[in-house]
């Protein structure tokens, strides 16, 4: 029977980032496992409370974890923010007796002691499937496409809680891209912030931070940018729109890593929601005869 991994999609993948969700699920099937959506889930709260004093902020993610624990001993996520919030909350529930008590008796009314393993889909590919096996399953190598792996913040920091890879010089993304035939490109801003929730009311700052990221990638020779966060994706794309309106010129498609994975595994382009205009990678693929 096919291995099943319980999967938490989160709100955004259910709505504006469906392509991220579908491409991951389909890729998993090709690689021999199923991302099985949890029967019961709610929003994770989209930001881990940064003060120990804010116990209420742990209630929503703790509820997700408590529900997930009845469906297996691991839960996988795709969105970097969900990953960060769930993984950090899980650590509190496991290691901090006082706050665990407060969360359980004050909010979720369900016993949960942090027994789950919260993993990101990238980790599943690296540790459970193995990048060599991914390489072996590639049907359409993305030969020579220069890709900038944009990590942003939530996948990496804080290292002591998240720990998916080295916080200053991560390689997990690049290793995957190499397995798909791409040529990963190092660029200075790959672990810098896109502007995050300043999307609400702080557009000028977002435009500056996000266009720095894109310019840094393009300046290092990247032809596409690959991300694992719908908020990074949104901020980058919106910033480009604002820059283009003001006469700027930044042409570089921004894609979810699972869309690139899906393409390389030979999936039907129609299900991947590859986007349009400046956002579309297909003209580049055509130009290279891929």
């Amino acid at each position, binding site marked *: 029977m096919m291995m099943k991994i319980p999967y938490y999609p989160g709100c955004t993948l259910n709505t504006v980032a469906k392509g991220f969700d579908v491409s991951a699920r389909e890729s998993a099937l090709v690689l021999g496992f199923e991302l099985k959506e949890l029967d019961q889930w709610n929003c994770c709260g989209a930001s881990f409370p940064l003060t120990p004093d804010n116990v209420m902020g742990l209630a929503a993610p703790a509820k997700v974890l408590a529900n997930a624990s009845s469906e297996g001993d691991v839960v996988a996520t795709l969105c970097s923010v969900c990953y960060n919030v769930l993984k950090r909350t899980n650590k509190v529930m496991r290691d901090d007796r006082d706050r665990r008590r407060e969360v359980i008796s004050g909010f979720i009314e369900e016993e949960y002691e942090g027994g789950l393993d919260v993993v990101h889909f990238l980790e599943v590919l690296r540790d459970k499937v193995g990048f060599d096996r991914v390489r072996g399953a590639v049907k359409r190598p993305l030969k020579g496409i220069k890709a900038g792996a944009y990590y942003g913040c939530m996948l990496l920091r804080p290292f002591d809680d998240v720990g998916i890879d080295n*916080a200053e010089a991560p390689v997990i993304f690049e290793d995957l891209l190499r397995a798909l035939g791409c040529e990963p490109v190092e660029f200075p801003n790959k672990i810098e912030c896109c502007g995050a929730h300043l999307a609400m009311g702080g557009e000028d700052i977002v435009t500056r931070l996000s266009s720095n990221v894109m310019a840094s990638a393009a300046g290092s020779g990247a032809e596409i940018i690959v991300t694992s966060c719908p908020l990074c994706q949104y901020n980058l794309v919106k910033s480009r729109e604002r820059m283009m309106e003001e006469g700027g010129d930044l042409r570089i498609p921004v894609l979810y890593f699972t869309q690139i994975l899906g393409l390389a595994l030979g999936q039907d382009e129609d299900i991947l929601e590859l986007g349009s205009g400046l956002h579309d990678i297909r003209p580049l693929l055509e130009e290279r005869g891929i």
Partner: protein
Amino acid sequence: MKIDREKLHSPFVEQVERVSGEVFANCYQCGNCTGGCPVSFAMDYGPSQIIRLLQLGQEQLVATANSMWLCVGCLQCYSRCPKGVSAASILEALRQMTLRKGEDHEDVGGLPFPFLKDAPQQAIISGFRKFVS
């Protein structure tokens, strides 16, 4: 700037320490946090300066600075602090203390429709968490 003995341990300063879980005296002002902070260019005071002002009991300057509203929570400050201080937690504490008084930073009713329509849910939810009581 006037520094007086009483203000050094004012209820405000003590509350920020309690809510944030950080001890201001741990910071030795190396400036790494401000150097790595992606939004310090737009802040009235960068993260290390906010901590310095708190060490000196300058409630007024800290409470009226825009810094807390600009922090994106990227954790570069904490990640690069040689003393393990989280400026992000301190700025979040300042935000929380303001919001708990019912003083919202964003007017929910005034958010532009295109944003509400296109933005990922996580942007709206985390924005509310950071800016609305």
